[in-house]
């Protein structure tokens, strides 16, 4: 039968998440600009990871499942990067870039 997990395991996980959530809440009262945003992201990601590993038992499930989860996150990150790059790298004020310069007369 599968290895039984101890109740302590869950309690530690819960405590960790409560700490992370509280830290995140506290952080929101400080005005740290971009660093603050980055830290918020980090703390949120950490709490999600703990829930996934402990309460959703990813630690116990097959390694293949890890590949599934990592793939999902990877492709989401890909979507985010290229979408954000688009918006950030456009001409000023988020306007669309002018069309490429090919306005030659068509034959």
């Amino acid at each position, binding site marked *: 039968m599968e290895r039984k997990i101890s109740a302590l395991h869950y309690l530690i996980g819960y405590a960790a998440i409560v700490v992370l959530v509280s830290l995140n809440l506290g952080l929101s009262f400080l005005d740290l600009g971009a660093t603050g945003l980055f830290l918020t992201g980090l703390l949120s990601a950490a709490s999600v990871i703990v829930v996934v590993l402990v309460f959703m038992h990813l630690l116990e499930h097959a390694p*293949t499942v890890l590949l599934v989860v990592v*793939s999902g996150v990877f*492709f989401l990150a890909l*979507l985010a990067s*290229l979408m954000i790059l*688009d*918006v950030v790298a*456009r001409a000023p004020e988020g306007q669309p870039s002018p069309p*490429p310069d*090919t306005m030659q007369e068509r034959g």
Partner: protein
Amino acid sequence: MNHDETAERMAPDELDYLRVERGLWSWLTTTDHKRVGILFLISTTIALFLGGMYAMLLRAELVQPARDLFDAAQYNRIFTLHGVIMVFLFMIPAIPSGFGNFLLPIMIGAKDVAFPRLNLASWYIYLFGAVWIFVSLFGGGIDTGWTFYTPYSTTSPSAVLPATIGVFIVGFASITTGLNLIVTVHTMRTKGMRWHDMPLFVWSIYATSVIQILATPVLAMAILLVAVDKALTIGIFDPAVGGDPVLFQHLFWFYSHPAVYIMILPAMAVISEIVCTFSRKNPASYRAIAYSSIGIAFTGFLAWGHHMFVAGIATIDAAIFGVLSMFVALFSAIKVFTWVATLYRGSIRFDTPLFYFFGFLFLFVFGGMTGVAVATQSLDVHWHDTYFVVAHFHFIMVGGTISAFLGALHYWLPKMFGRMYNEKAGFFGATAVFIGFFLTFFPQFLLGNAGMPRRYYSYPEQYQPLNMLSTGGAWLLGIAILFSVVNLLVALKWGRKASANPWNSRGYEWTTRSPPPKHNFVGTPVFNRGCYEYALNEDEADARVTTR
């Protein structure tokens, strides 16, 4: 020892899956993956003809430059419905949910898929989604193009809401099939079968399923946002409230580009099987084909922005997408070369499925190369939204996928129904499909390059001769597909009874009876030889397949 004896040994005296239970109710409540596969094949083929009907209508309008049969508004609805029905109700589900469901468990020696009831549910989800699309159809249809671009889709007076709901729902049928097949491959391979013992068909369907899982949810969100905007004017992409319509395109194409690999990978799955059987040879490189499937699935996700080169995205973004788009072609090319190398020095058997492969080979390569062409940003500026692009994707979707689909129907008809089709008629149909296809779509490359825009119901006079040729070709293509399908239907009733393995294939699905019994094999099949191992003689090959 002949094949029928092997089949009897693998699945002794049992009623086959068609006869074990009879009546409509037994079909509507089945959990047998083979029956679910057939249900999907029937529904998707009906969708094929419905989508095809819309194609014939729009080609009819394009015979003459001026408006003759339809005005602009009606024409927009016709090409939109053609696209929506073809893409979502045929191209995406037909091979994976049809042939994938039927064959994959048998090919890995399993009794069924991992979740048989979920499998049946996926068919009902598909039907429910199709119903919503029909509601839209009867409500006057939609005129947004199958791509639903905002802000037109959220402001169009046409029946966008039921259509988007339908597409959303059908997406879940796709996800559930993918989920089921992935779990099946991971957990239900028969004793002794490692990943590298699996038929190549399974690798490609597996890769397809991975794309279905990872890409479809993003479409679900994109289309949900359009539906929600239509229903409640929430306007996330509405410029009037600061929304950016291009962001819809990002989300839409993040799915829809990988989606085209959902459409071609299963076709490639079929082709791998046909090539090996009809050349009686091992694939020139098993790993090349297997890993290329994964390669296509992965690189397919990197390319979506190439649909948006002229949509106003940042130049650096477009440049990145242009480069990334090239990688998919590498893996497709590896497959093509490997298939051709497999044929070399094979013992070629010229039957209908192989003729569909020949058609596939020529048309897919054409389509693929023009794909690389339009992925080149500087060229796409000229070709975007012209008939050049239309020709490119039809070469792949029809020339590629539909050729493979028809080839699969002919190849596996004897396995599924125990009947053989008329070979002369099959050959005739395959040839007519190829000629009809080429006449329809090759002129469209020329038209597009000459500047004819897509989705227009009228055009300048100088484009007429090529348009007439294209419409003529479309008629031939339509009749040829109809003829081929009728030939198969005739075979169901009156065809010669097929033996267990009429093609003399070494594939695992051919070791059981035709049609197979409900649980495919009796006990656990053990395959002590490869599924492409033609080097062994017949008796040895048969003897190595046992059951326990």
